[in-house]
């Protein structure tokens, strides 16, 4: 027994770097009050899982790296508490705080300049829950490094069997998640050298592998979707590489850089796909829910809910039959029809033990056997409560008739009867009055009061105080949140809550959300439910599109009144386009509609008249021509016109003339294209049927025109007809 340990002490100390500012966080409603790594998962802070695992794996020194913000002290205190519990003889925890660390690259550069890293070290994120055999992985890394000096890093991936089960439940927005946490890997079979690293994006079943990879190595191992726990064993070269290359922001960019410039840098990266053991990051709230379930199902054994990771005491009583954990001091009030024949466990009062059986019955009724519930100390749960896949913190009360499915309830929460909670996060000290329904994806921040009888729509983030009016908030928080007054229609008569609009928290990289801007277009960081995510994306896009539309419209109006040159107009529009990052297609649509609207406004009246539109068209024909280059663009113009009719049907009478002029006078639209568009049914909007009737004449003429192309008289005839 003893020699085993001593072998490890011979080698130099093993260090680990935990980044607490994870690339993705849970959204301001949670992280404003508590840093992400201290958010409790099954009533244990996330950081404890990481620390306990590292300790178990014989890591000597841990550097907890965080950025200076309001949470720094909390993290420091927590780490201190963690080590003092161990009487300072176990793992050493050092908290390193930096002023301006925006991503992993910055952290590495900072640690390099502080020269805190002496040898190989383990690099990981603070939200990782894992039970992998690190000693084995590190030993393999060292072995490989001895044989191949150019190998600078071992990336650890997990072949997750559970992945298959989650893809079957793909409706819960798992695609998005899959993109972020899995990677396609191609490695050399013999050395494990990483040859290709790609974040999985396509849904297709094919993977394209560059052929030159086959020239280098005869055996390739391909992992189509290896789960990436963001765990790497780095040699001391890695931080120096980061400091040499200031453009390396994330680990992915380092991977890309090293693989692409292998000849130049002379470095390579090994990857190791671990088969057994558990590793999963609680990176988003969705993942949080998943990890929570897996921890309760004891997949992260020996880190299980019943034993505290800080003190190692057995804190909960565990019932393996229903996967329920409860603190002996939690009270389950007796309902009707309870049985009294019970085996009393050590330290459990008879009252509690008797009622646990009753609640177990309830649990089973709800979910066909498994319930996965953790109930914290001093919590009172009434008999009629139905809990499934939920965590209840300390000192909560749950009254009769509360239904909670996948609800994460923190400490001191009071939930009155008739509340329904579904896939939501309830912060500390929340009070829910009677009949509150919290829909899926909601985050209820600490101290919020809701109810009675309100329904919170899916994906809402609620906070207790209007963020801008409180003095103790740091500045960036104020800027990035839009506030509404406490509205009784939202939070109920007795309620006190403010909706935190999620769209803008997404954009800020000033807040805790550090690396999202750097990390390969992982733009949607703080997603919760898929519904919320979708909402966020839409509003975000729409917002910038509206801004762009407004600006283009303005420049067109100005241009018309000042009779600006076409190239100046194009310049102006392009500037707006770059500012809002709008695609070329959207530009064309906007410009087309803008020109037509400009015609309407120029006329002064609300009713668009042909003469006005005609002047506008004449004025901007060169602008429009600049954007219409291919046949496809012409279709876009047509679609844009159609969409305009949807919004403002008053343009309808002029449609025929617009199309005719664009075709004949300005020669922007080809007859063939119009016919094609017409036959295909336009853009498929509701307005097409009405357009169809109004331009029937024109189409008829076009058809005739294309049949006998040489007939110029015909053209003149219909010219008269039309005008």
């Amino acid at each position, binding site marked *: 027994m003893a020699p085993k340990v001593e072998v490890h002490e011979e080698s130099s100390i093993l260090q680990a770097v935990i980044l607490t500012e994870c690339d993705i966080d849970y959204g301001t409603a949670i992280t404003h009050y508590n840093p992400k790594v201290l958010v409790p998962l099954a009533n244990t802070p996330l950081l404890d899982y990481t620390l306990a695992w590292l300790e178990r794996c014989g890591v000597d020194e841990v550097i907890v790296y965080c950025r200076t913000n309001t949470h720094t002290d909390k993290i420091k205190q927590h780490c201190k508490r963690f080590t003092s519990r161990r*009487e300072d003889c176990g793992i050493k925890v050092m908290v390193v705080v930096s002023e301006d660390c925006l991503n992993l690259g910055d952290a590495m550069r900072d640690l390099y300049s502080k020269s805190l890293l002496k040898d190989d070290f383990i690099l990981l994120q603070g939200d990782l829950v894992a039970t992998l055999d690190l000693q084995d992985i590190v030993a393999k890394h060292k072995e490989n490094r001895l044989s191949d000096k150019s190998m600078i890093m071992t990336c650890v991936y997990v072949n997750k069997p559970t992945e298959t089960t989650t893809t079957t439940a793909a409706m819960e927005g798992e695609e998005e998640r899959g993109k972020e946490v899995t990677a396609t890997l191609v490695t050399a079979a013999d050395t494990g050298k990483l040859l290709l690293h790609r974040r999985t994006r396509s849904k297709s079943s094919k993977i394209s592998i560059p052929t030159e990879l086959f020239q280098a190595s005869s055996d390739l191992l391909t992992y189509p979707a290896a789960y990436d726990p963001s765990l790497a064993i780095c040699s001391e070269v890695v931080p120096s590489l980061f400091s040499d290359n200031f453009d390396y922001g994330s680990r992915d960019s380092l991977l890309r850089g090293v693989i692409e410039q292998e000849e130049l840098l002379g470095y390579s990266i090994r990857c190791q796909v671990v088969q057994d053991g558990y590793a999963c990051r609680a990176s988003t709230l969705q993942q949080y829910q998943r990890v929570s379930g897996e921890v309760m199902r004891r997949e992260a054994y020996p880190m*299980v809910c019943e034993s505290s990771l800080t003190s190692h005491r057995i804190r909960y009583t565990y019932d393996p039959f229903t*996967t329920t954990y409860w603190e002996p001091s939690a009270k389950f009030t007796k309902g009707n029809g309870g049985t009294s024949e019970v085996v009393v466990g050590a330290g459990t009062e008879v009252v509690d033990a008797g009622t646990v059986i009753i609640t177990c019955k309830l649990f089973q009724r709800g979910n066909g056997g498994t319930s996965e519930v953790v109930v914290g100390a001093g919590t009172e749960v009434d008999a009629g409560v139905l809990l499934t896949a939920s965590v209840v913190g300390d000192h909560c009360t749950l009254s009769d008739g509360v239904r909670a499915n996948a609800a994460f309830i923190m400490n001191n929460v009071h939930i009155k009867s008739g509340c329904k909670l579904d896939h939501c996060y309830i912060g500390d000290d929340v009070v829910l009055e009677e009949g509150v329904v919290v829909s899926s994806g909601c985050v209820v921040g600490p101290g919020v009061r809701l109810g009675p009888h309100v329904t919170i729509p899916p994906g809402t983030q609620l906070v207790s105080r209007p963020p801008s009016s409180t003095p103790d908030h740091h500045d960036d928080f104020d800027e990035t949140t839009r506030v509404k007054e406490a509205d009784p229609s939202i939070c109920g008569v007795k309620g006190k809550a403010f909706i935190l609009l999620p769209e803008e928290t997404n954009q800020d990289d000033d807040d805790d959300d550090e690396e999202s801007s750097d990390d390969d277009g992982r733009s949607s960081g703080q997603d919760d439910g898929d519904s919320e995510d979708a909402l966020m994306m839409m509003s975000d896009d729409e917002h910038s599109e509206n801004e762009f539309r407004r600006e283009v419209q303005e420049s067109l109006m100005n241009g018309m009144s000042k009779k600006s040159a076409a190239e100046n107009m194009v310049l102006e529009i392009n500037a707006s386009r770059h500012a809002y990052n709008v695609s070329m297609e959207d530009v064309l649509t906007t410009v087309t509609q803008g020109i037509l609207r400009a015609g309407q406004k120029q006329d002064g009246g609300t009713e668009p008249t042909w003469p006005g539109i005609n002047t506008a068209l004449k004025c901007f024909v060169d602008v429009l021509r600049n954007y219409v280059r291919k046949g496809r663009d012409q279709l876009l113009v047509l679609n844009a016109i159609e969409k305009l009719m949807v919004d403002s049907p008053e343009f309808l009478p002029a449609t025929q003339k617009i199309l005719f002029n664009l075709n004949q006078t300005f020669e922007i639209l080809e007859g063939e294209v119009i016919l094609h568009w017409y036959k295909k049914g336009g853009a498929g909007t509701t307005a097409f049927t009405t357009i169809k009737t109004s331009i029937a004449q024109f189409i008829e003429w076009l058809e005739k025109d294309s049949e006998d192309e040489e007939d110029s008289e015909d053209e003149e005839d219909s010219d008269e007809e039309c005008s």
Partner: protein
Amino acid sequence: MAPPTKQDFINKLRLEKFESEQSKAEESLALLEHIVANASWQTGSELLTLLRNVDIEVSAKLPWETTPRNMVQRALKIVVDEYSSCVGGVSAMNTSGHHTFPQVTMDPTGGVELPKCDQALPDLRDRVLEALAEYRAELEQSDELIAVQGESKIHNDEVILTFDWCGLVLAFLTRAAKKRHFHVIVAEGAPTYQGHRMAESLSRVGIQTTLIQDCAVFPMMSRVNKVIIGTRTVLSNGGIKTDLGAAALASAAKFYCVPLYVCTPTYKFSRISGEEVNHCGSGSAIIPINTPLPSSVNVAVSKFDYVPPENVTSFITNNRGIAPSYVYRHLSELYDPAAYHV
């Protein structure tokens, strides 16, 4: 070597770094000796409290680890005995004959008060250390004392059934094999499959060995003459708490009236009364890797099995053979009544 600390010991226990119960016993004794020798204490009561803190800490963190707690109980008994003999020697206040401290008062909450040993006795430290060293010697030879009984318990051409890995049983059988010729059937001991290791070791010393599944003990039992197993803990009622699969094995033995012997040193005798503490494992121990099992399937894995006293024929200990019904007596010899609650 660094002095053993309580924290280190518990960490080691927690991280499952001990190979056997024997090493747990030895290390915990070393820790207790260190506390007696180096901690600052004046009176016997102070020492008792210090020692009992180890017990309390282990039981709060790792309630299924009984061996270290037994060692603490044993040490408590030694301290109390030495104290009373000291007091008896120094002052002649002793009227009743042997005990000077008041009789044990049972706390109504279930906690037990330690006997009062309030006098500061200068030579108590040395005497306790001496007694502990004696006990250490006993501990170190307990395995050997059990192993030598092998040849008297096993006869030629017998079929012995054993279960899982147990160093003590291996030593017992190995010793017997020097004089006797017999056949051993090993149940594999899922899910850890330590029985494979047992079978390998047995065949290496030239014993004819057959490996079977755990669930196949019943069909094999009809031809078995004796079942010899090890255990983790002997409970105060005479039952044993041991690795999973033992209960089925014992029931099968009972059905065929095959005697079941449990090899155990006396330090495994515990005051714990029943099968109350079951340590639960993880589903990943029994589900093969890469098995897609939906999360709605509840997997429950327990680590210990309980064999009731009526299914145990006898304990083979380093002292003597003990029948399950006499375990309670043995306990009262080993441990102080103050630390003895049923």
